[in-house]
């Protein structure tokens, strides 16, 4: 698999909202309060309005993530991003993450598959990219290292 770095995306999050037990698991939503992204070809900020992550803890202990965020490039383009992901790991690691402790991201599986939509000509290449990301869950919010699949 050949890839190249697309961006490093840092999002900041607010306190999760616990929806509770739903038919497919336990649902939480995490409002995104801001953030930034930077890569060789684009950089900018994360708009808090309408950006959030919908989390579903499944019965098998795997956390499904369904993030939607609006990005604004430094030259004013808007990008709609959505990414599906999975997070799981040894119970003691997941518990440490839940306590907000710093954990080596290699100790758990946190991968997502971002897709992008934009009408901004400079970023049109994003519309047809398949990308994969490794996540690093920090107390203030996750950091995603997003690679373009070549």
């Amino acid at each position, binding site marked *: *698999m050949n*890839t190249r770095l697309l961006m490093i995306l840092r999002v900041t999050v607010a306190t999760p909202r616990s929806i509770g037990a739903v038919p497919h698991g336990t649902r939480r939503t995490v409002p995104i309060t801001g953030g930034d992204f930077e890569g060789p070809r684009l950089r900018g900020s994360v708009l808090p309005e309408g950006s959030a992550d919908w989390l579903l803890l499944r019965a*098998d202990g795997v956390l499904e993530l369904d993030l939607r965020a609006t990005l604004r490039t430094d030259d004013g383009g808007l990008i709609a991003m959505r990414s599906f992901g999975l997070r*799981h790991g040894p119970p003691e690691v997941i518990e440490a993450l839940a306590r907000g402790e710093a954990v080596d991201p290699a100790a758990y599986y946190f991968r*997502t*598959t971002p897709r992008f939509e934009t009408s901004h000509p400079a970023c049109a290449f994003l519309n047809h*990219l398949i990308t*994969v990301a490794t996540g690093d869950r920090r107390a203030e919010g996750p950091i995603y290292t997003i690679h373009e699949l070549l």
Partner: protein
Amino acid sequence: MNARPLMRLRLTTAATEAIGPTPHGMLSIFPITGGSFEGERLRGIVLGGADWVTAGADGTFELDLRVTLETDDSALIHMTFTGVRDDANHYFRTLPRFETAAPKYAFLNRLLAVGIGEGHRDGPVHTIEEIL
């Protein structure tokens, strides 16, 4: 990114059902009549399904596939992918996901994967790798 091979998936398709221009583009349904898959950890046959393909105004195709896989030890696996096919740029990439109730293959429920597709006369072949 680190990855390791998961399977090579060969699909056979029947005549395309051209739905035509819809609000999202030109929609065609590619019925999948069968096929096979093989990897170090699993192998078997494709029972069937289809790929819903929407052509955009810029000539790229958005793929949305659902198939059922049956392993050689009779476990059923529900597989889906979304993907992009852009023939002008030789870009045919997918994001497969799997669901199964078979304990032996439960590892599929917990992984994300990427696929590199190639068009062949008798149907597409996808080389699928697990994202580590």
